[in-house]
């Protein structure tokens, strides 16, 4: 079994470890700043960028408002085009369906196109438990899989690794899973890419079954669309006899015309390219051309839960471009694994609690994994207002249905609130602060949970006279 995020510590603890890892911080900083710069330049050249964002948000909102109708249309069109549609309510059901479909082919080695949903549901491990080896073919996903590592980004899952770490993984692991790395492999990017190419080509040519996700499903024709950079996806989508696509129910767009909006935005936002090098589309099956058997597994796994949240549902507009994590000052210092999910960064901080419910300490810590700076709001191509959703989710934890509760914090804030809306008490409290302040040494460490402040900061001086005391003494500065 490969590694999973099961039992991962809550964000503050995972982040503390990540922040202390200098190599990790250097790698993540370099990578995010590079993509950030490329994206900014390509967005700049589009005078209609804000209009595109409006359109992209509005189209997704329309889809989400009429999701049932669009999904039935997808099922009808895919079936008419020769595909078979399956419905999965959760991860277990999706994994069972895919495992059965692969078993029916008799194959035990299959290839995969990088897909966030199959990572979300843990498909690789489910297949492995059934004796089926599923090999990733995207370069970064391969690095993660070979290194028995966990992903740290939705677009570039091995973003936390630098090239010499990648070289070591290739040399150590490739031979155990197929063609070994060439003798004398260096950390030259070209050499590393060639090593991966040779290792994977063997798998493309052998595999009879491929599993993919999809970036978009066009309802009017039942067409699936995969956007990628390396061509590995195109190989899987065309060379296999059987293609199984596992897709979240929110991936629908109504028409081909709507696809135009997203194809102009996705690569610009994700990798800082005008178009991704490979955009593949397919509709059912075609005799003598590509896979003869096509299955579409449509997965809910919490999406209807998110849809029921009137503020949170905007997270389902997400097209997984990763722009929010590339701009995020928190992600930049922790990397993605600290979020304990295949969805890290700002989108992970809202999507995980929306899909799963903030009912365990790890998930409930995610809405607080943000300084609310709002940089993500500005880059999101589908205009997700991350800060609005974070605040809503915090209120779910603080005083809503979430099973995780912070009782001491609630009691403290309630007590402070009671003093604050009581004039005389508050007056006395502010005046007392000056007296206490004089007795507090500047270098003092605060106790309990407040040590987070004094670990890296001096305490402020507390003036002897508050503003209100001054106002009263001088009659508003008149004396």
């Amino acid at each position: 079994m490969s590694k999973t995020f099961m039992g991962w510590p809550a964000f503050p603890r995972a982040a503390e470890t990540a922040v202390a890892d200098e190599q990790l911080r250097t790698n993540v900083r370099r990578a995010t700043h590079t993509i950030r710069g490329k994206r900014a330049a390509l967005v700049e050249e589009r005078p209609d960028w804000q209009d595109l964002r409006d359109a992209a948000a509005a189209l997704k909102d329309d889809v989400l408002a009429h999701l049932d109708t669009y999904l039935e249309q997808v099922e009808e069109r895919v079936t008419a085009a020769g595909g078979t549609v399956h419905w999965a309510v959760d991860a277990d059901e999706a994994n069972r369906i895919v495992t059965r479909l692969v078993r029916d082919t008799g194959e035990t080695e299959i290839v995969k196109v990088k897909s966030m949903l199959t990572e979300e549901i843990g498909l690789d491990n489910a297949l492995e438990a059934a004796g089926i080896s599923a090999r990733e073919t995207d370069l970064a996903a391969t690095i993660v899989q070979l290194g028995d590592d966990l992903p740290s980004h939705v677009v570039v899952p091995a973003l936390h690794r630098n090239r010499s770490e990648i070289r070591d993984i290739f040399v150590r692991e490739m031979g155990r899973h197929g063609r070994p790395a060439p003798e004398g492999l260096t950390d030259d990017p070209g050499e590393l890419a060639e090593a991966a190419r040779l290792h994977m080509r063997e798998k493309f040519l052998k595999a009879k079954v491929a599993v993919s996700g999809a970036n978009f499903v066009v309802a009017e024709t039942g067409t699936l669309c995969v956007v990628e950079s390396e061509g590995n996806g195109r190989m899987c989508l065309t060379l296999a006899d059987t293609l199984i696509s596992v897709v979240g129910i929110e991936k629908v767009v109504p028409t081909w015309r709507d696809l135009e909006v997203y194809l102009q935005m996705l690569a610009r936002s994700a990798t800082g390219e005008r178009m991704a090098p490979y955009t593949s589309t397919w509709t059912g099956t075609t005799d003598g051309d590509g896979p003869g058997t096509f299955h579409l597994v449509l997965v809910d796994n919490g999406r209807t839960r998110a849809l029921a949240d009137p503020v949170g549902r905007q997270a389902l507009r997400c097209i997984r471009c990763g722009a929010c994590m590339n701009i995020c000052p928190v992600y930049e210092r922790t990397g993605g694994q600290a979020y304990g999910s295949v969805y890290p960064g700002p989108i992970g901080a809202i999507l995980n609690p929306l899909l799963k419910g903030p009912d365990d300490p790890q998930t409930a810590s995610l809405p607080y994994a943000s300084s609310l700076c709002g940089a993500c709001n500005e880059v999101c191509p589908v205009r997700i207002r991350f800060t609005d959703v974070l605040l809503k989710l915090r209120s779910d934890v603080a005083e809503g249905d979430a099973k995780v509760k912070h009782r001491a914090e609630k009691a403290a804030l309630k007590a402070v609130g009671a003093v604050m809306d009581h004039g005389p008490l508050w007056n006395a409290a502010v005046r007392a602060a000056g007296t206490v302040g004089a007795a507090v040494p500047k270098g003092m460490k605060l106790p309990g949970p407040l040590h987070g402040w004094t670990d890296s900061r001096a305490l402020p001086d507390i003036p002897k006279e508050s503003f209100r005391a001054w106002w009263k003494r001088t009659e508003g500065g008149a004396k």
Partner: protein
Amino acid sequence: MRTTALFVTCINDALHPGTGKAAVTLLRRLGVEVDFPDGQSCCGQMHYNTGYRRETARLARHFVDVFGEYDEIVVPSASCGGLPSEAYEIAAEAAGDAGLLRDVRELAPKVHELTSYITDVLGREDVDAYFPHRVTYHPTCHSLRATPLGERPYRLLRAVKGIDVVELPARDECCGFGGTFSVKNGAVSGAMNGDKARHVLETGASVLAAVDNSCLMNIGGRLAKDGHAVRTLHLVEILARTEADGPLAGIPVARSGGVLR
């Protein structure tokens, strides 16, 4: 006769009274007589940002009771000044309080962050200030994105006589404060703050200015812990000073005419 109230904010009241005094001095110089209703306490930002909407509603009710009768309420803080319009309606809805909802809708447009009050309501940029020191400015996230002040603070600063304004590298990046974030996620917050403090030092400025003392307390706390002499000052404390006050004691005087733009 319009009535104007100063909502000084709880942090300024207890920890930065100089900011409140400077606001009074400056507004008076610009012809605005402010009142300080002493029933005021906190806007409820800490409660709201941590998820406690019903507690926020209680403080919103208190805010309305204290300030509702005034024509305008001026706040020397972008984050606290922004809260009534950003949060009070949501808090009132969460508390199911229709009366409060009506009241806060009426109140919110009357609440002004101080620097935009000076530029937009009073129509002033040159406020006859004098501050012969090297200053860099950190646009806090609230003043940058939530209620964007844009170039206003820079225009006010550049009109100050004798000042040497230097650009802060990576100025748009959050300092890591984020209210309870700085305590709940102290490690990440500290790492963000460390980078911000480093950028401040790179400018060679003697003073770091902003329109939120909470963020300044964060960055200043780091600078002080690391033993650096950079002073943090709310923008209004710079704008309030005139030639009669002379240079600020204990801070190097900038070479005259050395304004970097």
